[in-house]
């Protein structure tokens, strides 16, 4: 069940009524767990069993870590926990990919290594990472151990974030479940959550769908497009993912806020970034900070504490981190390539830090900032080509097609013989599809920029009652009229 389905919306209203009718804290947490269980079991009862098993194992490991007196025993439990989570994730997500590639390279494509053909359990990439983070923090004494299994299960299974994140930290989420104040009904929280949820729904259902309608056909049949068409597709794609994923995140954050709970943000105006390192501090923040805190920092520290490798040590740690970030998205070479490209970009930025600093001093600050921003967004868009395709050969084909026939396609679009313009500029569709996508895209980026600068509530509260309500009606009407066209949620498949 996706957060933008009608079933979820109806269920969520019923849930909220019950949630605020129950006065006891434990009762509410019980309801939260029951609702989360229902949400997961609706997809598949096995998914719920697996998630509960992970919750139980990680809860028990955390508890035994805190009660063990010997440092050595503590370390053994900690490492066992990390290994179990990684193995669990690998079993469901990566074993068949490894078998396939080993069979291909070592055994001439014969199925010597078996395939498990298991279905990827919903949310597993998110809750295993949250569990690893929790065990790491408890072991390194950055977080207190959780004493209540009910609270810990709610932390891992909490339905707004279960299928698509954000990847939450125990120390952010768990104390909120214990805080009676946090869960009192507050009109301002409820209103703010509802606004954020609706805005997220608009981004996902209306904007992302309109953009995907425009570029989807090119991804389905790359060979039929080239030149300007594919350049357009490549540059629209990151914004389509942004509309979809930030939309989903806003819905998750909004839903939680309506219950008085606060989830971590995932985006902070990513397209204003002036370097790829800056971009990753603004894009899918809960994943990038997870990778930074639990992989990059320990690894770079281990290297720095043991060896004097200087920047080389950072680059090794960084490359390993981005490789993991890439493959987290799925068992595909294209995701690995996506991670490797990010690592290359950031390694370049580390190596040229001093040089770029002196360029910055010498040039006009505004020009430097603008051009750095354009270069950053363009590089990210090009790297996203591997994010959008299923195979490496499709990725290479995309690049090949994109850089071929640019001049011809410009000429053909100008001459417009045999509906060439329609094929080149609108991917063979009616011009209204392009127009709708561009108008919605402009509207979305314009409003989002305001929201990023001021915050949604301040922005709305500053408006007159008439403007505010007209905006609500317009957004809801657009959601309503586009609701039957929504595309499936990519980040829910990770």
């Amino acid at each position: 069940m996706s957060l933008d389905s009608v079933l979820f919306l109806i269920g969520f209203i019923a849930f909220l009524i019950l949630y605020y009718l129950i006065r006891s804290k434990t009762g509410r947490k019980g309801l939260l767990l029951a609702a989360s269980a229902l949400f997961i079991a609706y997809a598949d009862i096995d998914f719920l069993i697996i998630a509960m098993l992970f919750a139980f194992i990680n809860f028990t490991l955390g508890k035994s870590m805190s009660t063990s007196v010997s440092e050595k025993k503590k370390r053994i439990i900690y490492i066992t926990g990390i290994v179990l989570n990684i193995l669990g994730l690998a079993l469901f997500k990566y074993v068949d990919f490894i078998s396939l590639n080993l069979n291909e390279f070592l055994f001439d494509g014969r199925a010597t290594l078996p395939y498990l053909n298991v279905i990827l359990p919903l949310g597993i990439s998110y809750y295993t990472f949250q569990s690893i983070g929790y065990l790491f923090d408890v072991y390194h004494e950055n977080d207190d151990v959780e004493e209540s299994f009910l609270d810990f299960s709610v932390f891992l299974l909490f339905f707004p974030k279960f299928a698509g994140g954000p990847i939450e930290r125990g120390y952010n989420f768990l104390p909120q479940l214990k805080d009676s104040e946090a869960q009192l009904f507050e009109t301002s929280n409820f209103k703010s959550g509802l606004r954020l949820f609706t805005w997220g729904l608009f981004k996902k259902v209306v904007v992302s769908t309109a953009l995907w309608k425009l570029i989807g056909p090119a991804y389905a049949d790359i060979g039929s497009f080239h030149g300007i068409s594919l350049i357009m597709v490549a540059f629209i794609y990151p914004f389509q993912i942004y509309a979809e994923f930030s939309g989903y995140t806003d819905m998750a954050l909004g839903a939680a806020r309506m219950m008085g709970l606060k989830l971590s943000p995932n985006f902070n105006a990513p397209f204003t970034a002036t370097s790829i390192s800056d971009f990753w501090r603004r894009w899918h923040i809960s994943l990038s900070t997870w990778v930074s805190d639990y992989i990059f920092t320990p690894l770079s520290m281990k290297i720095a504490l043991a060896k004097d490798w200087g920047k080389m040590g950072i680059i090794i740690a960084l490359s390993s981190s981005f490789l993991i970030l890439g493959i987290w998205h799925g068992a595909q070479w294209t995701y690995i390539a996506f991670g490797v490209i990010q690592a290359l970009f950031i390694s370049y930025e580390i190596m040229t830090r001093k040089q770029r600093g002196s360029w910055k001093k010498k040039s006009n600050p505004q020009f430097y900032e603008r051009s750095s921003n354009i270069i950053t967004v363009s590089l990210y868009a090009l790297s996203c080509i591997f994010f959008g395709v299923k195979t490496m050969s499709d990725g290479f084909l995309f690049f090949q097609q994109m850089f071929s026939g640019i001049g011809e396609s410009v000429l053909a679009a100008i001459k417009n013989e045999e509906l060439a313009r329609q094929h080149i500029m609108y991917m063979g569709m009616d011009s209204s599809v392009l127009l709708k996508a561009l108008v919605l895209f402009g509207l979305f980026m314009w409003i989002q920029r305001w929201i990023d600068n001021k915050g949604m509530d301040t922005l709305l509260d500053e408006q007159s009652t008439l403007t505010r309500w007209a905006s609500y009606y317009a957004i809801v009407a657009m959601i309503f009229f586009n609701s039957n066209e929504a595309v499936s949620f990519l980040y829910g498949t990770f």
Partner: protein
Amino acid sequence: MERKELVSRVEEIYKEILEVDAITLSDEMTANDVEGWDSLTHSLLINQVQKEFEVKFKLREVISLKNVGELFNLIESKLA
């Protein structure tokens, strides 16, 4: 070694790694307060601190550091 001398030697390291002309560190300062001090430069700083004071940190000690003051304390505890 006096705290004052320790602080000024750490400041020299920060200046070199973060490539800034001047920096004044205080106990409550965190990475958020200093431009250029991010997860990328953090390990270079720690490595240089180890070399400068000829001390050895453990991963756990470094990961649990909350602010600059705690780093000073850690160095002092190693020198004691």
